[in-house]
């Protein structure tokens, strides 16, 4: 293997979308936590609960439009992503069984070869898509139809919105830990957050099956 070789893992648009999503996600989580639990200092960061709510709702618009535009303009890439994360093979189950070697007290001889995304990332991807969809469809009536929907339905929306957000926040925290802090996988940090490249060696080790399909460009 070439020590100098690099793999372009994420395109510029993907990275822009990821950054955008990251920023509005933080805003949404922060404002949401702020006014759900009445935490004054968070609300005051945004100028009181009413303004925090405005920030929350307009961030949500970006939260919806960002990925939507990305999907429309990069439908091919999105389809490929869906295809990858929905393909669950024996190797993926093998990864789950060993937890990819991330858990110290699970003894791992060898982690099975992985696609562009390992089984953990696949599950995360799927959950994020479902979670975002739930957040969007429950959030919309809470804002736009709050006056006309039945009170029971509104409470139902608030509950789903709340529990989905809790799960999503935990998932994203785990994602952040593995991608930015854990020494084994933070080597891929730049692939999404900076220039899009990963060392070929690392890819060959982490994403063996995907690496085999790559083509060299010069």
């Amino acid at each position, binding site marked *: 293997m070439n020590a100098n070789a690099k793999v372009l893992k994420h395109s510029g648009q993907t990275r822009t979308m990821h950054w955008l999503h990251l920023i509005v996600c933080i805003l949404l989580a922060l404002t949401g936590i702020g006014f759900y639990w009445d935490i004054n200092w968070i609300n005051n960061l945004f100028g009181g609960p009413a303004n925090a709510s405005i920030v929350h709702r307009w961030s949500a618009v970006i939260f919806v439009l960002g990925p939507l535009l990305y999907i429309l303009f990069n439908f091919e890439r999105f389809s*490929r992503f869906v295809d990858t994360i929905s393909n669950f093979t024996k190797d993926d189950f093998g990864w789950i069984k060993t937890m990819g070697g991330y858990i110290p007290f699970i003894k791992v001889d060898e982690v099975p070869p992985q696609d562009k995304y390992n089984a953990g990332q696949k599950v995360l991807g799927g959950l994020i898509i479902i979670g975002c969809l739930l957040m969007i469809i429950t959030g919309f009536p809470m804002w736009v139809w709050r006056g006309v929907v039945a009170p029971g*339905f509104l409470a139902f929306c608030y509950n789903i919105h709340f529990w989905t957000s809790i799960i999503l926040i935990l998932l994203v925290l785990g994602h952040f830990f593995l991608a930015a802090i854990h020494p084994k996988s933070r080597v891929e940090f730049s692939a999404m957050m900076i220039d899009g490249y990963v060392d070929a060696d690392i890819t060959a080790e982490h994403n063996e099956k995907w690496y085999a399909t*790559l*083509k*060299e460009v010069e």
Partner: protein
Amino acid sequence: MKILKESSVFTRRQFLKGSGVLVISAVFMGIFAKVGFDAVAAQEDVVQKRVAGLYSLDEKMTIRKSHENPEIIQLYKDFLSPGEIKPVSDKAHHLLHTRYGEEVPGLIAELKKHPIEAA
């Protein structure tokens, strides 16, 4: 430096899965909207059932007109307009009528000045 990239093949399967996610999302939104409309209908249904309950209670009553209520007739004959049935008599006016807004303080003063004769 050597650079490796994904091949840009776009298979039929990938296309179907990508659009599948979008279609499923749309269907899911539809189901959710249906739940919302059902909830509105269910909320109105409670009101309608209570309305129907009162109307059917009315139909079961033997007397269905206020002026035929025997105790009302007795109340007028014995108390409000002795000997006859005459609504808005003086006593009825004192006990059963009121005034609104700025006229209320005057009414209170009047009621305190001329209390109903002791029973």
